[in-house]
């Protein structure tokens, strides 16, 4: 089972790398931030797998904080750093 956990964690890490390509190429700012969101979810999965492999319970707390903080960064992007002009009428 240990091997499976670690293999999956490795697979998800590679998955992260693939998602990185979208950050570089993404035409709009939203695409880039989207990939940031991908990072959050995948990192939570990797952490949970590592928690099971090493038996270190604390990693689940790290995953919990990750899940929460990914949302805060994304909201910060939406509310502040989205700079393209609002074309149609602002609600």
């Amino acid at each position: 089972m240990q091997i499976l956990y670690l293999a999956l964690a490795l697979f998800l890490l590679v998955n992260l790398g693939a998602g990185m390509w979208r950050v570089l190429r993404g035409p709009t700012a939203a695409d880039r931030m989207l990939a940031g969101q991908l990072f959050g979810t995948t990192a939570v999965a990797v952490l949970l797998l590592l928690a099971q492999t090493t038996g270190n319970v604390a990693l689940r707390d790290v995953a919990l904080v990750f899940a929460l903080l990914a949302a805060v960064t994304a909201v910060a992007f939406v509310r502040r750093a989205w700079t393209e002009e609002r074309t149609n009428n602002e609600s």
Partner: protein
Amino acid sequence: MNPSDYLSAALMIAGAVFFLAGTLGLLRFPDVYSRLHALTKADNVGLGLVVMGLAVQAESWAVVGKLLLIWLLVLLAGASVAHLIARGALERGIKLWRR
């Protein structure tokens, strides 16, 4: 490798497949909205499956509870952020993809 190991292995591999699908969607789909759609759905289901796979192995119900809490939070955050990004994109006039 007793039956519960097989079950959790199957669940987690399925989860990984969903993650792969999410990333492929992110790379292949033509516009923001479809990528958003692919990413949010696939990854959350992927994480759900991985969490269930781990829950089967979990040593106590408290751990299962914590894992589910983490998953619910990711679902909540993922869904609302996806909506915010989509609304923001619409307001900024990012065109939907047409064939």
